[in-house]
Structure formats: structure tokens, C-alpha cells
């Protein structure tokens, strides 16, 4: 590398592509595009139509009962007495069912959220590529297990575990249902949460690490704030799954209508109640209509959950 002042060795790439000639788009392409757009528009609108239709039919089945003389909305919401088939003393109080749904959901989330988010963080940030693939496949497999199988597991395995470990008389109870629901929600929380963390650009990680943060500091101060919307969505989907789940809780919670005083009490949820009783209720009877009204109550609950989530996300954004 002695000084060489006579000849430069710098070169430009020699093949610079020539300008491509513009061609007008053929007619079929334009028509095809419009047709495709129409198709997509229809499928978008159909989502709205279906939701409205569901609303319409549920309300249509439920509303007549509001005008019947032996039904009061106050009793429906705040009474714990649910005697729909009683001959002399018919009572339609869903408060105990509501409490059952809420407690099972809350307890299951208390179990599932730490596990789910922890697993999402582990898969996204800590484990190697091969382990990552294995874990993701296993978690997807977990999500594919039908709910009735989960219910069966609750009824046999977990119920037995609870009775032997704690010595309580009945194994199918609030705790059992919550564990089953947690097991069912964890795969959703993990896969959505992992997607949210994966969507955080690597440049954030690198910028954080370049400032000398440790891995934990990076996760707590950069990744979680960056992925918070996605992580919240993951948790809410888990909540949605827990609120809406029917078969597994029907089998695992013990199905008795009462307000629980501890985790070892049996409960019944709104969804399980509908599933268990709708088949026996005569179509058009007050019992049948009250069950549809319970469906509306479920609608309201999920609506409130979604709305709060929306507000939370907006609050985070404004900050």
C-alpha cells in the first residue's frame, strides 16, 4: 500500500439498468380490481350485518319477557334466587351467576396473565431459535385442545388433585374452573403477546442495549411500554375467552347456584347456565326468554370489557 498518486482504484457499478417503458394497464386488470374491491367490501360489510343480526334475534327472543307480569328487571339483576322451573315460586335472579362468571374470570386471569406474559417474554426475548419453534408449536397445540376435553381434565384430574392436596370435600369448584380457564387462556395470551413483542422494532432493542441497559431493564423500560397495546389486547382476548367459555366451566365449576365464599365453593357461570338449561326450556316460555336475556347480559359484560380496554389504550396513548 505505498502511495500511488497516478491511478485511482475506485469504481462505479458498470451496469445501470435502463428505464423501463411504461405500459397502460389492460382492461381486464381494471375490471378485475374493481370486482376484487367489491368482494372485499361485501365481506367487510357482512361482519356488521352478522353482528346486527345476532343482536336482533337475541333481543327478539328475550324482549317479550320484560313485559310479563311476574318478571322484574331488578330481580333479574340483583336477586340470587334462580328457580326457573319451580311450580309455585318461580324466580329468575342471575346475580349469583354473574358473580360466578366474574370471580371465575378474575381468578383465572390472576393465574393466566403472569404465566402468559412471562412465557411470551421468554419466547420472544430469551430463548434460542430452535427452542422458540418448539415452544410455539406446543403452545399452538395447547390452544387446539377442545374445551370439552379441558372440562374432562378438570372433572377428573384437577378435581382429584384439589381434593387430595387441600382436603376439601368437592373438587369441582371455583378454583378448579379458574385453573382450567387459565390453562385455556394462556396459549392465546402467549401467542398474541409474543406477536406484540415481536412487532417491536429491533432498533429499539439495539438503541436500548447501546445505552448499556441490562436485559431486564430493556424489557421493563423499553419493550413493555412499546408493546403495551398488543399485550393488553392479548390479556383482553384471554378475558374474552374466559368470560365466554362454556363447556369447560360447566364441567369444572360444580354448577351450583350460589355466591362463593372461598375458592373451594362451587359456582355456576352465566354461560354454563345457558348451555345447561336452554335445551330443557320450552321455546317461547318465560324461562327460555330469560335465558336469552342472560345472553344479553353477557353481551353487556363483554361490551364493558372492550370499552374499558379502549379507554385504557387511549389513556396510555395520550400519556
Amino acid at each position, binding site marked *: 500500500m505505498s502511495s500511488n498518486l497516478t491511478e485511482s*482504484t475506485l469504481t*462505479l457499478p458498470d451496469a445501470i439498468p435502463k428505464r423501463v417503458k411504461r405500459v397502460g394497464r389492460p382492461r381486464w386488470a381494471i375490471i378485475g380490481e374493481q370486482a376484487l374491491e367489491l368482494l372485499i367490501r361485501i365481506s367487510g360489510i357482512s361482519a356488521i350485518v352478522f353482528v346486527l343480526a345476532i343482536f336482533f334475534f337475541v333481543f327478539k327472543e328475550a324482549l317479550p319477557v320484560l313485559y310479563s307480569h311476574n318478571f322484574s328487571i331488578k330481580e333479574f339483576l340483583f336477586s340470587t334466587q334462580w328457580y326457573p322451573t319451580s311450580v309455585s315460586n318461580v324466580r329468575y335472579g342471575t346475580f349469583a351467576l354473574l358473580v360466578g362468571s366474574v370471580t371465575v374470570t378474575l381468578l383465572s386471569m390472576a393465574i393466566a396473565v403472569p404465566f402468559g406474559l412471562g412465557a411470551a417474554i421468554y419466547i420472544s426475548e430469551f430463548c434460542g431459535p430452535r427452542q422458540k419453534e418448539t415452544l410455539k408449536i406446543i403452545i399452538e397445540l395447547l390452544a387446539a385442545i377442545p374445551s370439552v376435553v379441558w372440562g374432562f381434565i378438570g372433572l377428573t384430574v384437577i378435581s382429584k388433585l384439589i381434593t387430595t392436596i387441600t382436603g376439601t370435600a368437592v373438587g369441582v369448584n371455583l378454583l378448579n374452573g379458574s385453573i382450567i380457564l387459565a390453562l385455556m387462556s394462556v396459549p392465546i395470551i402467549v401467542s398474541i403477546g409474543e406477536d406484540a413483542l415481536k412487532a417491536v422494532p429491533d432498533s429499539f432493542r*439495539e438503541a*436500548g442495549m447501546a445505552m448499556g441497559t441490562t436485559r431486564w431493564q430493556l424489557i421493563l423500560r423499553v419493550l413493555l411500554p*412499546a408493546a403495551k397495546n398488543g399485550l393488553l389486547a392479548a390479556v383482553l382476548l384471554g378475558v374474552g375467552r374466559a368470560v365466554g367459555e362454556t363447556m369447560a366451566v360447566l364441567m369444572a365449576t360444580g354448577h351450583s347456584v350460589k355466591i362463593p365464599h372461598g375458592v373451594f365453593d362451587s359456582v355456576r357461570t352465566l354461560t354454563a347456565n345457558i348451555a345447561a338449561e336452554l335445551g330443557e326450556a320450552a321455546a317461547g316460555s318465560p324461562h327460555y326468554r330469560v335465558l336469552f336475556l342472560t345472553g344479553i347480559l353477557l353481551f353487556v359484560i363483554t361490551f364493558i370489557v372492550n370499552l374499558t380496554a379502549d379507554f385504557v389504550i387511549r389513556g396510555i396513548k395520550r400519556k
Partner: protein
Amino acid sequence: MQARFRYVCGCVTERNGNRVERKDVTITVKDLYLSYNAKEVIHGISFEIYRNEIFSIIGPAQSGKTSLLRCLNRTIEFTSGTSVRGTVMVDGQNVRTMKNVFDLRRKIGMVAPLPVGLPISIYDNVAFAPRCSGLTNKSDLDGIVEKCLRQAALWDEVKDRLHSLGTAISGGQQQRLTIARALSHQPDILCLDEFSIAIDPVTTMRIEDVLIELKNEMTIILVTNLTHQAKRLGSRTMFLYNGNLIELDTNEVIFSEKPGKIETYDYINGLFG
């Protein structure tokens, strides 16, 4: 090749009539080879950077400038398939064998070419590194945030909305935010990788003034595509091309009519090919 070894640490040399003082070496790079997936991109370069100088690195794209900076604070490790050979010494410590890489990274402030405003508030962005090293005192943090934002010529624009998101400000402002962030942990070495790419010329000049002041406190490594910026700011300039060190010398030599290599002259004066 000779030009590079003209300054041997500890000796005093005369060159072009300028007396060159004894220099403290802060970074030593020796026979550095870097490959991405078996494709070698840096072919064995060696140089030294002295304390409290502005050291410019110029060269066209793909010449290994950014990769070189990433070797200094070992962020190169985040890219899979890289392999580094050779030694990089920062303050007498070999970075490759260093146990506490977090301390090394705190010592080196790094400004990436594309602005990365972390998705937290502007205040939190700048207070990020001090907080990570355990500083919680509010008034201390306020002081650091203001000082760094002022140094990055951003304070006046954002002082009323310190708590809005760091990603919500414009690209040029985000770039200055990253400069403020890099300064926030009071690094010994500041690496600026194309810092002026999204910043208007007037603001660039303001930051350059700050850099000249900062030179008294830290060593600044400036990777730039603007050869005039290297000429204005730096004391020495290194010209990299395709992962080879073509020339390293003082600015008087590099930007003179007769630098050591004809390629350097051609590159600086835009006479490629």
C-alpha cells in the same frame, strides 16, 4: 501506510509546521476483521483514536463505517452470523474479553443513523440511561434532561411537551433526541453515525458547535457522508473504502491538494471513476 504510524504514542512530531502534541490513546483497533455470514466486510484495519479529539470516518456506503462503530461497543453481537477477529481496546481494556459489557456501552454514547425515539416520553427517553444506572432523584434527572436536550439543540422546541411521546416528534427532532440520549449517560466516547442526515443545516451547525465544546470532555467519533463536515469538525480523518483503510491522517493532509492517496483526493472532491 506510513502516515498511520507517524504518531507513535508519546512522541512529538513535526508535520507541515504544526507541532503535534503527545496524545493519550483511548481506542486502539488492531487487525480488525469482520464478516457477516462468512462474507468479510472489514479486511483487517488498525488505527488509534486519541482522547478528546474529533475523529472523522468518511467513505462511501458499504465501506464498513457503521459496522466498525458497532464493533466498538459490541452491539455487532445483536446481528446473527457476525464474526469478529482482531482486537479492539477501549481505555486499555479488550472489549472482546470484557465481562461487563454494560459498562462498556455506558462509556460509549452511540447515535444511530436512523433516529430511534423510544416509545416513551421525551423526558423518559433522555432520563432512560441515568435511571438504568440507578439515578432516581427527580431534580438530578431534570437537570440532566435539560442539559442534554440543550446540548442537542432540542430544548427550546420540546421544553413545553417533555411528556409527549418520543416517537411523536419529527424525524429531525428524534435524531436530536437520540443525541441527547447518547449524552445523557455522560459517555467518555461519543459515536455519531451520520447524525446530521435528517437535520437542517442551521441546526446541524448548532450541534456542531456543541460538539466542538464537548470535545474537551469526551472523544468524539464522527461517521459522516459530508466530507465538509469532517473537514470542519475533525482533527483527523480516516477514509474507509470497501472495508479497507485507505488513509488516515490529520485533516490538513486529508483535505489538502495532495493527500497520501489519490483515492482520498478523488472521493473528497467527487471525482469517482
